[in-house]
């Protein structure tokens, strides 16, 4: 696994019955501990400037697919820091060959922290004080599709 949040391994188009239906990429949890899915606050994805909403992105944790709605109420399934999540994005035809600029925002709750920090959590914006053990909310990476 890499230090970067968006991983270079696992970025590819998704094929279904011979047709390319979308693409996927992996992110690691840049926290010092794991979280339950309901703690996640998924944000917005931009690929080469094209916007994908949180409702349109499936999270795959330990081999299981979860929608944004399903994760909201799931406080039993745990995402560990050592296993990246796979994010699957619907896009007919997928991404074209060559370079792509990815920018993705997400964060997670930590209810043991002072309320002032929790109240302003926004997956698409950085926290007002950056604490590296929580990672950046928004991460970018430029990766190639073959």
């Amino acid at each position, binding site marked *: 696994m890499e*230090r970067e949040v968006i991983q*270079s*391994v*696992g970025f590819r188009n998704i094929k279904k019955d011979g047709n390319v239906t979308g693409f996927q990429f992996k992110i690691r949890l840049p926290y010092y501990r794991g979280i339950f899915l309901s703690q996640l606050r998924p944000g917005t994805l931009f690929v080469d400037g094209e916007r994908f909403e949180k409702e349109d992105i499936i999270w795959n944790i330990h081999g299981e697919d979860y929608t944004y709605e399903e994760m909201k109420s799931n406080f039993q399934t745990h995402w560990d820091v050592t296993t990246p999540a796979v994010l699957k994005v619907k896009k007919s035809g997928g991404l074209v060959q*060559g370079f792509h600029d990815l920018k993705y925002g997400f964060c997670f709750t930590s209810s043991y922290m002072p309320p002032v920090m929790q109240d302003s959590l926004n997956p698409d914006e950085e926290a007002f004080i950056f604490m590296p053990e929580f990672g950046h909310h928004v991460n970018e990476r430029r990766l190639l599709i*073959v």
Partner: protein
Amino acid sequence: MYQYDRKGPKRGVALYSYSAEFGLTKSLEECFEDLHDMGAHGIEILANTHIENYPNPTDEWVEKWFRLCDKYEIVPVEYGNWIDSHVLGYRDLTTEESYEMLARDIRLAHRLGFTVMRTKMPVINDALEPVKNWREIIKMALPLAEELGIKMCPEIHTPSNLKGKMVTDYVDFIKETGTKNFGLNIDFSVFRTEFSEGEYRDPNYTPNVPEDLIPLLPYIYCCHAKFINMSDEFEETTIPYKEIIELLKKQNWDGYLLSEYEGADKYDPGYEVGQTLRKHHIMMKNYIGD
């Protein structure tokens, strides 16, 4: 078990390319998935690097190996081994001892599903010629290799020339024995024409042209797709790749081209060899057609 049935040249990756990352930021499974991202099916491993508990892997590890091959649609193509008859400092290994070392690797390669071995031997001069008893060692191993369907191939790379003595010696040996279990791995460094200014160039090196491959094709069972520099337009700037692949297609050569990257920059912090390999595979995919 996953099979990739395409005829003609096919693409793959030699895990040697990940030498700065393997065991640190990439596990064996991450290397497999990296190949899968590229749509590459062929793989080359190094016996002494990628087999856990080499030379005696557990049955559990071998099971895991095949599980990974299935999951990521990987075909075990080439198994890199060394017959190191200079492994002792005070004497050479006997032919018998060298054979035993080789036979152990043939069995292991077969157990992991490989069909080609890239066999390296100690060299005795600057022309990179192998130890004097190489013929005896290989001859002794031919029946086992034949039984297990393994083709042993020394690697031909710069500064060796495709028309040079070493290649001729190997081809003579193949003709003399009539064996189908010994052949050549050609590393594309033998076609390199472009060097940057001030870069060291071996005085014994003369570039081959792709046509030089033609008489050797019946004996070539695998190639190292060596590459030096990929442009952002996904072209290799030092080796005539387009011509080489066109020739291999036209001659109906059926085998794998395995990306081998050995630029020293892969050890620089922050270097992303996976992205370099993806550039190489965009090019190969476009020339090969899959």
